[in-house]
């Protein structure tokens, strides 16, 4: 492969993985539930593209299956279902945030810097595509976790979890030779988790008339101070 082609391949892979990361950061500061779900769907689309591109670069056709699963499950089925849930629950209005947008964003940027600092020396010997990919993937995982702990609405926590899982897929496809069965099982487990979450959200709603998890905590008698 010529040097120019290699650079081009690298740039595209970099761009797509970076796109997933940027969408993760966007996810952090969305105020409305519908917007959160839409950004999540967009992230899944970019992720599917990235996985497809990896399949091309690595010459691994089974990654196309992964890309297809991602596209179908995460960009179509789950967002549609989440939209339906939100409509049904009638919570598609503004969501409240635990920490303000600015600090959350700053924390997210710090996490991105941290994951690059940690990953780069560890995988120095790996090829540059995988190297960048891992850094981005770790950042996406951390941002998903951050989203889960900064949100108090059950639906947006579910979305945080799903985007965390996107980071895992990004990492898994970046490494060469990851067998298909791993990705399939990860995707399957996410679907199951989604169903469980969905059922839970409705149960919570049925009982408490809200999907604010703080109410749940107050009910369990474990709330010590109001956040």
């Amino acid at each position, binding site marked *: 492969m010529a040097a120019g082609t290699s650079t081009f391949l690298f740039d595209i892979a970099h761009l797509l993985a970076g796109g997933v990361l940027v969408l993760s950061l966007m996810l952090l500061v969305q105020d409305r539930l519908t917007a959160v779900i839409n950004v999540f769907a967009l992230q899944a689309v970019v992720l599917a593209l990235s996985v497809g591109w990896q399949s091309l670069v690595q010459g691994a056709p089974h990654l196309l299956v992964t890309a297809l699963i991602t596209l179908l499950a995460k960009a179509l089925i789950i967002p549609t279902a989440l939209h339906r849930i939100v409509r049904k629950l009638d919570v598609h209005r503004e969501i409240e945030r635990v920490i303000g947008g600015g600090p959350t964003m700053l924390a997210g940027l710090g*996490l991105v810097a*941290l*994951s690059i*600092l*940690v990953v780069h*020396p*560890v995988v120095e010997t790996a090829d540059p595509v995988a190297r960048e990919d891992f850094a981005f993937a770790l950042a996406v995982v*951390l941002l998903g*976790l*951050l989203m*889960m*702990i900064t949100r*108090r609405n059950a639906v947006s926590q579910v979305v945080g979890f799903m985007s965390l899982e996107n980071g895992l897929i990004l990492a898994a496809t970046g490494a060469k030779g990851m067998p298909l069965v791993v990705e399939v099982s990860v995707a399957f487990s996410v679907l199951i988790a989604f169903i469980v979450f969905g059922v839970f959200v409705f149960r919570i709603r049925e009982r408490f008339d809200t999907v604010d*998890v*703080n109410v749940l*905590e107050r009910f369990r008698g*474990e*709330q*010590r101070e109001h956040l």
Partner: protein
Amino acid sequence: MVGGMSDVAIGLVCIAGFFGIGLSGAVLGRLRIATPIVYGASFVVALAAVALALGVLLGEAPPSMVVLPIGLPGTGAHFRLDTLSAFFVLVVDLGAAAASFYGIGYGRHEPEPARVLPFYGAFLAGMNLVLLAADAFTFLLSWEFMSLASWALVVVHHRESASIRAGLLYLLMASFGTLCLLLAFGLLAGPGAAIGGTAGFDHLTFAHMRASPPAEIFAALATVLALLGAGSKAGLMPLHVWLPLAHPAAPSHVSALLSGVMTKVGVYAFVRIVFDVAGNIDPWSGLVVVIAGGTTAVMGVLYAVMQRDLKRLLAYSTVENVGIVFIGLGLALAFRAAGQGPAAALALAAAFLHVLNHSLFKGLLFFGAGAVLTATGERDTEKLGGLVHTMPHTAVVVLIGCMSIAALPPLNGFVSEWLTFQAILMSPQLPQWGLKFAVPVVGALLALAAALAGACFVKAYGIVFLGRPRTPAAAGAHEVDGFSLAAMTALATLCVLIGILPGVVIDMLAPLTRDLAGSALPAQVEVPWLSVVPIAQSRSSYNGLVVFAFLFCAALMAALAVHRLASKTTRKSPPWDCGYPLPSPRTQYSSASFAMPIRRVFGSVVFGLTERVDMPRPGDTRAGHFRYRLRDPAWRFAYGPLARFVVRGAQHLNRLQFLTIRRYLALVFAALVVLMLVVAAWR
């Protein structure tokens, strides 16, 4: 060797026998017949082990090894029977045989034998396994097995909250001790053990540790760790706190094993690690051991004097005797490091002889306490008294035990303490000036301990057996069964025999001291008139036989004189009432009042004594009260603060139990980020 089996294989067969006894105890436990079967079988197996040990010691058989294909993969479990193991097998199984025989009679009074019998066999098996183990893994495994089995015996009477508390404390101390031993073995095995796999496991055998001694600093560190680990089992200050709680909680024959025998397994662990496996140790470690032993001896006996619970008094006295043993061991370390073989051999022989002696008379005294408990249902000395009239046989054998433990000639306790003093008197030969000065101070401590032990057992015997009964329970006592009496009589006989003929036992110890100190005491059997001459005739000698003969003749002549010369007419008159108009048993010395002078002398520093007198005003008819409270400095300064720290920490951590899910997630997240920051900063 018997029938092609090596000695260690016979030892393992005995251990398998104990395991089998434990199993049959578990199966038969609820039947009435189980008690005599289990104790009888234990007695037979223990006697077999005693015979084996005697054969190895007297025949000076070479060490025998066996490797079983269990335990560590590729390396297996190593077992070895050398003279050191054989001597401790002798001590353990002699005690076990006596306790088993005693148990045939005493065990009948046990309300729940199914809780005792399975663990009794397992406990004996565990102790013997520790003595035969020849690699760190097998050793620690057997050590823990022994600890757990003995814990089960401590909490037999689990409906008494004191038992449960004692058991908990014992578990804590046992785990601490095992941790220390684990670290000590880690240091001795060296970095080679970390490679893992068969090659790494091979570093854990004692043979390998012996062949590649660690650097001096690691050897010293391992000595300290072994002192902590083995000392927590043996009862060194300040690790002794569990003994006075746990030993009395068990049934009496098990108490005898815990106190008289299991502490010796702790001593064995120390000797095995420090003298045998660790190689050469610098003399200052010896000083640490000597000082630990000296303080333990004095503090142990001081607390023993203060006790009113008979079995607790005996447990504290065990602490004292372990201190005496450790004085001998520390001296042996110092002498050996200075290259003075004969002096090291003397100190070692003194320590080992005291190990044997203590296991005999402490077993005897716990049996005596058990007999008193059976006869009266009481352990509290303040409620006993006058038992010499109702339990004459027990009274005689317990008197011999008390005299032995108080180190009165011509009994065995005197010989070993005398030998320890001889070793202390050799200390001017040590090259280090610090040791030259420090060791005589410890000698003074030992002398104090010996004197206080005399006071302690005058009190124990006098309050329990002499005077008049203090309660109806004491007045209604009856002599105990034949098995118990026979076991006590056998131990008392051994105490007297070793006291009169110590040379035989000292000669038996010669191969041990030759292995561990490179030298042995001169053969004592050849000395005329059965004297004991540890170093040279011009220096010191002791003849138990002469002392015994003199005492016997003097007593005989005095008795004859009294009976011949005194008037034969019997005269009955009111007893001299010493100004007390009411001849109530309450006017006698009580346990607390007997100990009062010592309590006052050492009150502020040692005991943290607080006394409160509640005297009614004149004309007031209510009773007066006198209360006092002692606080063990180990609790005041070490365990109290530690326990408070742990409780406070636990209360703080308790909040973690009630966090919200999001906070748990945040904690995980924070931990992850902190770890990543560390990784990023590390590079």
